[in-house]
């Protein structure tokens, strides 16, 4: 009898330990990314305020930006293994769209780095991500101030349109350049009998945004009324 209670005791402690480790890991992850994006925002704002034109914003913050945005790939893994409660497919779609714009559109085409839509897009991304990661981090320890919840569920109303416009404008702006340089495009004849027209691919990709934005926006609006209503009620409960 002593042995069995000891072994079940060990089992309970193991799963509790796993739960705690997951929390600590996620807390670390979310805090690191919130800091990373804060660095990007700081660099972007600094460059904008000191320089005359937006040409060097991307150059200055691109290292922190690339690291922070690429690390988001981990979130797909988190969703896939059940560490977080999101759908892996939704997470994948969101992360891949940012990575496509960052690595396949913006980074390879230096001619467009100075266009004004670039810092606009980067700053929109920064604000959205900083709020999001702080919200996740504080949720893990149950200490989310109402103001942060309000920001998380209200900022999207302007950040989504601004961010998406920035992304679409950036993609659109590289089209004439890549048509001339043939970036990432493949033409016949070749050993694998395949051709790839990158400009046309990007145009189809842009068209793909059209059904998504209204759906995502509506979903966030619904979440907003649900979460802000709940947070207000929780706040009142705590006050009483």
């Amino acid at each position, binding site marked *: 009898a002593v042995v069995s209670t000891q072994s079940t005791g060990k089992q309970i402690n193991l799963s509790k330990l796993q739960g705690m480790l997951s929390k600590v890991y996620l807390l670390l992850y979310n805090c690191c990314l919130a800091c990373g994006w804060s660095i990007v925002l700081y660099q972007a704002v600094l460059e904008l305020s000191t320089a005359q034109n937006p040409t060097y914003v991307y150059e200055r913050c691109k290292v922190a930006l690339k690291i922070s945005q690429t690390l988001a790939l981990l979130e797909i893994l988190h969703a896939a293994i059940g560490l977080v409660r999101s759908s892996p497919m939704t997470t994948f779609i969101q992360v891949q769209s940012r990575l496509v714009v960052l690595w396949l559109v913006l980074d390879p085409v230096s001619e467009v780095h100075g266009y004004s839509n670039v810092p606009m897009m980067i700053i929109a991304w920064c604000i959205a991500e900083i709020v999001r990661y702080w919200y996740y981090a504080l949720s893990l320890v149950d200490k989310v101030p109402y103001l942060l919840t309000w920001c998380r569920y209200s900022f999207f109303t302007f950040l989504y349109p601004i961010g998406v416009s920035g992304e679409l404008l950036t993609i659109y702006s590289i089209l004439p350049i890549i048509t001339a340089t043939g970036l990432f495009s493949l033409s*016949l*004849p*070749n*050993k*694998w*009998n*395949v*051709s790839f027209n990158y400009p046309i691919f990007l145009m189809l990709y842009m068209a793909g945004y059209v059904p998504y934005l209204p759906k995502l926006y509506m979903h966030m609006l619904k979440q907003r009324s649900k979460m802000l209503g709940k947070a207000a009620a929780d706040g009142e409960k705590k006050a009483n």
Partner: protein
Amino acid sequence: ARWFSDSEAVVSTQSTGDLKKMHIKEKPYLYPTRMTYKVSLKEKALPEETKIGDLDTFCDGSVLYFKDLGPQIGWSTVFFAEYIGPIFAYLTFYLARGYIYGATTPTTTIQNIACAMYVGHYVKRVLETMFIHRFSKATMPIGNLFKNCTYYWGFSSFISYFINHPLYTPPGCNLCVYLGLGTYLFGELGNFSCHIAFMNMRPAGSRTRVIPMPDSNPFTLLFHLVSCPNYTYEVLSWIGFAIFTSTFYAALFAIVGGGQMLQWALGKHRNYKKEFEKYPRGRKAMIPFIL
């Protein structure tokens, strides 16, 4: 949805088939293949021709739950629609090269053989659907038709566009040509042998399922190793075709098709194991010894 018969009382000697006829009289848009009944919402649908009297908990006033599966389409119909696309698309790109590419040179031997391979595969499928296959379900939801046709017609267009292109490049090594063709033929013969074997395992007009076993055809020996050797052979065919034509979209088709077939094989394998207690243990779903 609950349905109470307004007009006639249900007698215990009647079956679900009779119920369906009564139901259709009141709701003429329905037809038997889209209708199922359940005793409770949590259980599976009642099999065809269940007698009401055989239902254990049934008595006067018991409720039967009805589910409308939506518009249905016959499996054969779907298969024909799916296979017409590849045949039509490939022959169009092969025969109308002058119009489509402005091609002035004739096709090479490899392009000719590739056409025979591709079109031949789908002609074989049409013939099998007409004379060999025995389906366990009569219909499937009509949404599948559009999804499946997009897949087949779409891929066929890409594949045939590139293979019949005047700038087509055949594979670099002769070995690839013979290896590809040989693998394709091996796969086609194996796949056909399995289809014949399946046909003989199920008597005409019935929907019975048995544990698949090899027959006298050596190709069917693969049944010892996998539940769905027909899929195994088909994936081999497409791999052979991709090697023979050295075409990216053909390779992609082999991968995507293979992945889909693997999913189906895993499902069928699971069903076999559930249905038959004595299902052979060493067998895998589609890939011998592996999965």
